[in-house]
């Protein structure tokens, strides 16, 4: 038995000891099934194609205890101040170690038709939104981390936008890992019914100095004629291992516009997958990351073109410093039915000095004949001669670096729909550059 297996077993034992019980509820049945799937799958190794460039052995072997509500430390508003967005007009809901914190949340300025609550309020009775949708989009048959998350989902965030509700003020979901040497399993469910519109930001932060393992899952359904802006901001410590799975299902004529921003984390793996399950759909998956020291940032995207007349746009930009490593895998599947598909993917990296490294793997699988699919990848370098060129014109080093990097990231930053978030992303980008030089 190797260490992986031992730890898999450990988590299963924990599941049985702490969380099993009330098996009668459908929700708990799903959890139990997830637990047994996780037991069967175990942690993935680099032998698995999707994990070829990212070795998670350090996570599998480490001794993380499972987050428990009773152990979650007390966190004050002052503690989370740095994570709040300046001039934010919308609502915010805060989770500590995956557990809802009422006193830190501020649910205001959004339509009262919208549900913004911990998932756990909906486990029983009522409309059964959670039971009906849980694990339907983020399936766990072949996803060990999603299975693990599902098994340990106790609370989590539910965002429900009913049909025809157009909400221009945003919803900010804040997840904070506050207990060291702990595995937390944040869970989000964003359900947008037909003809609605919303903007949701998920952000992830750390409030402890020890290693943590954050394993998050977000399930999103976007109804017909619905528009969802969805941003994920990951600004965790360099001791955070962050594995996330964002799974989306889109119905006809919907528009899903997303961007993922990565500023922290030691080992980061972001899966995002969207199923274009109708006609006339548009989907945008953008990503921006800046890595330093020995960070490992893996973005894994999957766009499933299932029906005709849909378009997808993917633009990933990575700025790699020091000895950090980036991985980008972009799979686009165009099924036989999906004629007139228009899919664009581009992945660009900027290596700043040192020994940064990038592995990129586009993967187009096309089974329809009347489609437009393009992909491109570039790796640029800021070398000594470019830097000298700036300086020989009177522009100091720091300014040169920020000009170059900003120019590189600009397209993604200016595309952010929300001003508060745009300011924050801009600030974080320049801050990472500055601290790198200091």
């Amino acid at each position, binding site marked *: 038995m190797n260490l992986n297996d031992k730890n898999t077993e450990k988590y299963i034992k924990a599941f049985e000891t702490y969380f099993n019980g009330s098996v009668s509820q459908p929700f708990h049945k799903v959890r139990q099934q997830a637990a047994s799937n996780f037991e069967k799958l175990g942690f993935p190794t680099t032998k698995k194609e999707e994990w070829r460039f990212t070795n998670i052995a350090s996570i599998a072997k480490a001794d993380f205890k499972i987050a428990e509500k009773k152990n979650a430390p007390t966190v004050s508003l002052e503690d989370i101040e740095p994570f709040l967005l300046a001039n934010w007009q919308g609502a915010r809901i805060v989770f500590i170690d995956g557990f809802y914190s009422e006193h830190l949340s501020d649910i205001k300025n959004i339509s009262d038709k919208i549900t913004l609550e911990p998932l756990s309020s909906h486990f029983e009775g009522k409309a059964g939104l959670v039971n009906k949708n849980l694990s339907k989009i983020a399936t766990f048959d072949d996803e060990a981390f999603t299975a693990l998350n599902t098994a340990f989902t106790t609370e989590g965030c539910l965002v429900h936008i009913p049909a025809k509700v157009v909400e221009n003020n945003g919803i900010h979901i804040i997840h904070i890992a506050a207990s060291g040497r702990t595995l937390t399993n944040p869970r989000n469910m964003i359900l947008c019914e037909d003809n609605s519109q919303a903007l949701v930001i998920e952000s992830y932060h750390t409030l402890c100095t020890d290693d943590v393992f954050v394993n998050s899952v977000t399930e999103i359904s976007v109804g017909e004629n619905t528009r969802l802006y969805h941003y994920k901001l990951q600004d965790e410590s360099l001791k955070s291992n962050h594995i996330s799975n964002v799974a989306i299902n889109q119905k006809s004529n919907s528009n899903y516009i997303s961007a993922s921003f990565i500023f922290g984390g030691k080992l980061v793996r972001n899966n995002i997958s969207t199923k274009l399950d109708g006609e006339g759909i548009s989907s945008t998956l953008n990503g921006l990351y800046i890595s330093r020291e020995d960070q490992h940032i893996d973005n894994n995207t999957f766009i499933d073109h299932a029906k005709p007349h849909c378009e997808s746009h993917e633009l990933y930009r990575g700025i790699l410093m020091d000895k950090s490593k980036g991985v980008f895998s972009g799979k686009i599947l165009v099924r036989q039915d999906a004629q007139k598909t228009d899919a664009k993917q581009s992945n660009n990296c900027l290596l700043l000095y040192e020994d940064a490294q990038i592995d990129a793997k586009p993967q187009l699988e096309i089974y329809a004949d009347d489609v437009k699919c393009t992909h491109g990848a570039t790796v640029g370098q800021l070398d*000594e001669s470019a830097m*000298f*060129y700036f300086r*020989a014109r*009177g522009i*100091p080093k720091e300014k040169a670096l920020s000009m170059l990097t900003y120019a*590189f990231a600009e397209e993604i930053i200016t595309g952010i729909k929300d001003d508060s978030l745009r300011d924050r992303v801009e600030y974080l980008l320049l801050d990472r550059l500055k601290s790198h030089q200091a």
Partner: protein
Amino acid sequence: MLEVKDLKASIAGKEILRGINLSIKPGEVHAIMGPNGSGKSTLANVLSGREEYEVTAGSVSYFGDDLLEFAPEERAQKGIFLAFQYPVEIPGVSNVYFLRTALNEIRKANGEEEIDAAAFLKMIRKKMELVEMEKALLNRSVNEGFSGGEKKRNEIFQMAVLEPKLAILDETDSGLDIDALRVVADGVNTLKSKENATIVVTHYQRLLDYIIPDFVHVLYKGQIVKSGGKELAFELEEKGYDWLK
């Protein structure tokens, strides 16, 4: 304005400049000629502050200050301009933004106010005419995809905007057709004044038909082996460098 004394410099442990002496006064044009690999670009780069080169001996004084003490950007802010032999491509940063930032950094360092966008555009329009540069190049990324000639022209355009006190043109003439050569030379001549000086590094006497040098120096194996007036350039054109060895 510039006094170079017994300057020695090396790169990767290899000595390239082996004792250079050079004295330049305001208003003068100095041509530096010499065979490939003799150290012309090295001298230009050392004067501009490129850090890969290690100065091992000698001194450079610039308006009485120790030039070698200053970082490259400080030298630029004090009026030194290097027109690169191989201008660098800067993807994503537009030519016009790059140049305005450069100008403003130089102005700030000299206690002057920053120039606003409108005034800047007005000013550069004139300078563009001077070097006959295409307007389209302004909004493109710095040097990215520029032809060889366009890159050289862009260097002279930058020089025209930044108005340096000491311009060092490192083979700005190579790769230029005869019209472009004339334009570049016109640019240099128009900008010439009693206060500023120019160092022209070149292989060809033809450039010196347009930019008349006050002095011609021959650099050979890291030393100035001969200096003279403009007639020295003709002599070199005729006889090559062998007779100097």
